[in-house]
């Protein structure tokens, strides 16, 4: 009889402690950066920050740090890809157009998974055929492989034809980074333009406010 009456009383302080903890966590959460209501796959904290050493489409060595201050859309592909890569870049161009002047704060980084054929000059002509805010990047096979692996991607050169032509299979993901270089969103070429526009607006707005 006595233990039965005591048990709820003994639980009371514990409940109070738990309640206080939850309240303080909620308050604490509000004081930190509020999580963005992203529509696409949120990878905040799950993928490493933007970091690489490559050559841009002007032949200049660049690093991930050179794009701090910009919202980055990172995509892997190659210029001899006549179908999926142009389709993806054409979609990203439309998305940036829809952002209007906000898009000046964004850069598409098109990283070649075919450095043997993709010189800075070819990359320059290729990316600018889609969007003036697109940058083509190439490097040594080792540097490119390291970057692809950093974002859990992969690529492989397929057996070529008699005339020396070959295709490259590659990860189709588009990674979005905020202005501080933090990985925030994982998109795929089949995601809607609406969702990409929505999430980019959040990233561009959030970056501008801080």
């Amino acid at each position, binding site marked *: 009889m006595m233990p039965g009456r005591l048990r709820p009383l003994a639980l009371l302080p514990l409940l109070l402690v738990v309640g206080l903890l939850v309240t303080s966590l909620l308050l604490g959460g509000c004081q930190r950066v509020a999580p963005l209501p992203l529509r696409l796959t949120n990878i905040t904290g799950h993928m490493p920050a933007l970091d690489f050493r490559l050559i841009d489409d002007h032949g200049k060595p660049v690093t991930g740090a050179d794009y701090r201050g910009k919202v980055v859309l990172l995509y892997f592909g190659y*210029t001899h890809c*006549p179908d999926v890569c142009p389709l993806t870049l054409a979609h990203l161009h439309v998305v940036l157009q829809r952002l209007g002047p906000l898009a000046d704060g964004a850069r598409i980084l098109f990283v070649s998974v075919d450095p043997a054929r993709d010189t800075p000059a070819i990359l320059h002509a290729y990316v600018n055929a889609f969007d003036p805010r697109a940058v083509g990047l190439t490097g040594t096979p080792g540097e490119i492989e390291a970057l692809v692996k950093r974002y859990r991607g992969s690529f492989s050169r397929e057996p070529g034809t008699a*005339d020396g032509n070959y295709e490259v299979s590659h990860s189709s993901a588009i990674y979005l980074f905020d202005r501080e270089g933090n990985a925030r969103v994982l998109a795929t070429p089949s995601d809607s333009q609406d969702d990409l526009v929505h999430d980019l607006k959040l990233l561009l707005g959030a970056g501008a406010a801080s």
Partner: protein
Amino acid sequence: MKWLALSLLLTGLLAGTAAHATEAAHVRASGAWIRVLPAALPAGAYVTLHNGGDRPAVLRGARSAVYAEVMLHQSSSTGGMSRMRMVDALVVPAHGTATLAPGGYHLMLTQPKQPVQPGDTVRLQLQFADGSTLPTDFIARPADALGAGR
């Protein structure tokens, strides 16, 4: 004389039958376009094929006077990977359609013999399994195009 007349009649009949029975004769093409990329890079060609015939028509590929090589390809995205493979045939079902569109089936055009600019028209001879061909005019569109446009 009688034999000659008969053979001429037969030849005419056979030729007539053959002309109506070819796969190409039953196929109509619409919305044909090419995505032109800079630096003479490989381009993708797209078209919708309508088959008005009672039998399937089988597209095997195409030829062009402008591009040295034309290959029928299929892109796919599975498991987060984009791939492209050569395909031997694309069936246009009887009284149905088959679509060559970005991200799926397409004709890959390589080694242009002359520069192709957006706005140009490029004729491709679509080739079917029975050897028949369908001349089709493709409109060249810029790299950032999302369709045949108007």
